[in-house]
């Protein structure tokens, strides 16, 4: 292996072997017991706490932190899982500075919120690592529900339905379940196969059958599912990706790049460009850029067509990119690719009312690999489903225009490309399905038996 960071072209093995482990190590290592105690002591146990309001899954954050404080982290974990069965992944990937931690009153008090995300991970890690699933199913109802998509929305829905005694079959287009948790996020956010381990633990409730490699419209139809099942939940996410106005052999979807990276056991075998340009301004752009840098790219540039304040990536993510050695160029709209591979940009200016103006001035950024992360879109949808703004139109807790068909997560209106929102929508749709099919009104907590001390 003689490649270095300076080797031109898209090549593997730019770094010494040990560098990969360092570059893809846990970006936010877990708190130890002492750190957790210190962090937990900072919680004020607010009344009607703003952090709960800010959490799409409404986790009772002050309660779980108090449970950590009092030496019962497993109880804290159960408080989290009652609201959010993906509490482990959300602790890793949530943009907490925009959610719970952004609402923490200590942010106002002294500029540093309680480390809610890290505490949530502390409370949930041991329970998941125990491999023992802490919920038990309610009595069997004999009802069968199809879930399309084994991502956060689909599995959250499936888990809640299974907990209520329904039988669930999950159809998923990929080889492995987990959706974006498995394929779509930067590997340093969920190391050591956490996404797969979490799904396996989640399935421990029983009553959920996974059918991988089953894509809606290709392998199964909505019509057939409606015929066979008592209800259908659609949570397949956004299968399509937006395209640039030009193409070239070295231009690639960032989503594909991340997915391939996530599924590559030995990262030294994964090719990456010397000069990588990532086009886009969201979390995916950052995940792709930082990982390209981690693979040994000499220069990585995120180019976003509007100003920094409009970037979808959170401030924390932008800072993470910058400190990882990624350059962020804003107000640069991609125009074309030159013969040498460089991307040509037009400088832009943001005007009031979201208007963007091209200044007419241009620049070029050298590139032997271009990763495109300018958003995803809904794949082909079955006839009869009402679409609104490029997503499946839903009302209430995810009801679509088709009877007995619900939708949630990124594929549905209200989806905001956050794991935690997808989890909430899947959960709430499950409650609605249950209520509609059985006539039982939903209760705050799932009607399941908690196996306390699961991690014992």
């Amino acid at each position, binding site marked *: 292996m003689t490649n270095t960071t300076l080797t031109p072209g898209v090549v593997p093995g730019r770094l010494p072997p040990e560098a990969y482990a360092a570059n893809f190590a846990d970006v936010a290592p877990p708190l130890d017991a002492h750190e957790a105690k210190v962090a937990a002591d900072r919680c*004020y146990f*607010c009344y009607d706490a703003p952090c709960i309001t800010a959490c799409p899954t409404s986790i009772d954050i002050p309660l779980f932190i108090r449970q950590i404080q009092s030496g019962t982290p497993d109880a804290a974990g159960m408080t989290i899982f009652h609201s959010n069965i993906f509490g482990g992944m959300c602790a890793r990937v949530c943009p907490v500075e925009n959610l719970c931690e952004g609402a923490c*009153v200590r942010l106002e008090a002294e500029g540093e919120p309680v480390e809610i995300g890290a505490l949530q991970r502390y409370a949930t890690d041991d329970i998941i690592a125990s491999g023992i699933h802490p919920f038990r199913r309610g009595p069997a109802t004999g009802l069968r529900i199809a879930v399309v998509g084994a991502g956060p929305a689909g599995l959250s829905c499936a888990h809640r339905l299974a907990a209520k005694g329904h039988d669930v079959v999950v159809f998923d287009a990929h080889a492995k379940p987990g959706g974006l948790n498995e394929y779509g996020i930067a590997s340093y956010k969920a190391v050591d196969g956490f996404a797969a381990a979490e799904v396996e633990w989640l399935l421990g409730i029983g009553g959920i059958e996974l059918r991988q490699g089953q894509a809606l419209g290709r392998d199964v139809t909505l019509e057939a599912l409606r015929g066979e099942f008592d209800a259908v939940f659609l949570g397949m996410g956004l299968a399509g990706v937006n395209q640039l106005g030009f193409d070239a052999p070295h231009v690639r979807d960032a989503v594909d790049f991340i997915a391939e990276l996530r599924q590559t056991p030995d990262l030294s075998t994964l090719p990456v460009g010397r000069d990588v340009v990532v086009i886009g301004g969201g979390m995916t752009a950052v995940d792709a850029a930082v990982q390209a840098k981690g693979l040994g790219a000499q220069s990585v540039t995120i180019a976003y067509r509007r100003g920094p304040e409009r970037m979808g990536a959170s401030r924390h993510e932008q800072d993470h990119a910058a400190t990882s050695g990624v350059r962020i160029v804003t107000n640069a709209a991609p125009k074309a690719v030159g013969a040498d591979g460089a991307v040509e940009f037009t400088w832009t200016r943001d005007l009031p009312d979201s208007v963007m103006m091209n200044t007419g001035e241009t620049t070029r950024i050298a590139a032997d690999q271009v990763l495109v992360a300018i958003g995803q879109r809904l794949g082909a949808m079955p006839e009869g489903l009402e679409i609104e703004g490029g997503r499946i139109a839903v009302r209430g807790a995810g009801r679509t225009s088709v009877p007995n068909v619900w939708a949630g997560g990124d594929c549905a209106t209200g989806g905001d490309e956050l794991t935690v929102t997808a989890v909430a929508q899947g959960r709430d749709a499950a409650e609605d399905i249950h209520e509609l099919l059985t006539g039982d009104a939903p209760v705050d907590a799932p009607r399941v038996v908690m196996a306390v001390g699961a991690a014992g």
Partner: protein
Amino acid sequence: MTSLASSFIGIKSPNPFWLASAPPTDKEYNVRRAFEAGWGGVVWKTLGAEGPPVVNVNGPRYGVIHGADRRVLGINNIELITDRPLQVNLDEIKAVKRDYPDRAIVISLMVPCDEESWKAILHRIEDTGADGVELNFGCPHGMAERGMGSAVGQVPEYIEMVTRWVKTHSRMPCIVKLTPNVGDIRKPAEAAKRGGADAVSLINTVNSITSVDLDRFAPEPTIDGKGTHGGYCGPAVKPIALNMVAEIARNPATRGLPISGIGGVTTWRDAAEFMALGAGNVQVCTAAMTYGFKVVQEMITGLRQYLGEKEMALPDLIGRAVPNVTDWQYLNLDYFTKAQIDQDLCIHCGRCYAACEDTSHQAIAMSPGRIFTVKDEECVACNLCVDVCPVENCITMRELAPGEVDPRTGAVAGGFRDWTQHPNNPMAQAAE
């Protein structure tokens, strides 16, 4: 610069901060380090009678109560008096006093309750050069079972008797250290005064069990599966100590009796509070055991700054708050305050709301945007919101101006009427 030089019953020290009789003052090594750090004096850890020294447990001897971030709020101990030979202690006291003539060294004593024992120990300590003695009538554990410590301190007649023996057989200044484990702290103080004590010091530790091991079902600290009550000290006991100091200071029978204040003194402010309530100096233990001897430096600079800002000499601080300590029945019932919330300082945690709404008087309103405001017509001015607010001075109590009507009661502020004058009191005296 404001002088902190202190003279307590004639015992001079460069500042009023003494280390209390306790583990930190058990031997020469510690006391030298304490003096180097700046402590004004020490009360050497209690000496017992000649003979085989007492034996301490060989398991944990301290228990603790923690606040947030494992901050030590209170420690209890089951340690006995010094377990080192008497002569070793005497030799060390003499050596230290020779090298630090400007610092106060008082020797704490505890021997069996007979005149000969006291006469003997007083004779033994005569040529150490120590400045005085402190009679340990306070320790509530271990030694009390043997008829010493708080077993003496809980019986005023014994206090008076032993104190008189000490004053008969010694010319040294004598401080009587009192136990708080009594119903009325004034009684032992009066007894000490009758016996001829030059001063009292208080409080010794409070009888306590700090916690229970929920796996072994035994009190902590646990010795081979069993635990016993120990003496509680530290910031948690300060309010108890302040009250007892004030009770003695304002008691006509003991008024003017010098008091050495002890009990949770952690910062200069605590010390100043003890002194304002009548303590002539203070003794410290838990703060030093928690943070080391260096804490005295903050006490020195803090008290000096405070006195400087007040343009007050140290002796003028002593007892300055005593006239304002009174009985409940003399509090003005026509004095009104209302909580007010500084919206600029509020961090919107809602703890004031939870406290008031759930446990008090429903006098705080919560509006959209998490805006918390006080409902004057409901506020009884209990101060709970002030107490639970995490931001200092965010919630304060506003005094109603004279003539202002309290919207809750309709009463007019600015008058004076205490319970002895109140119409609701069947025993009330008509105001003249």
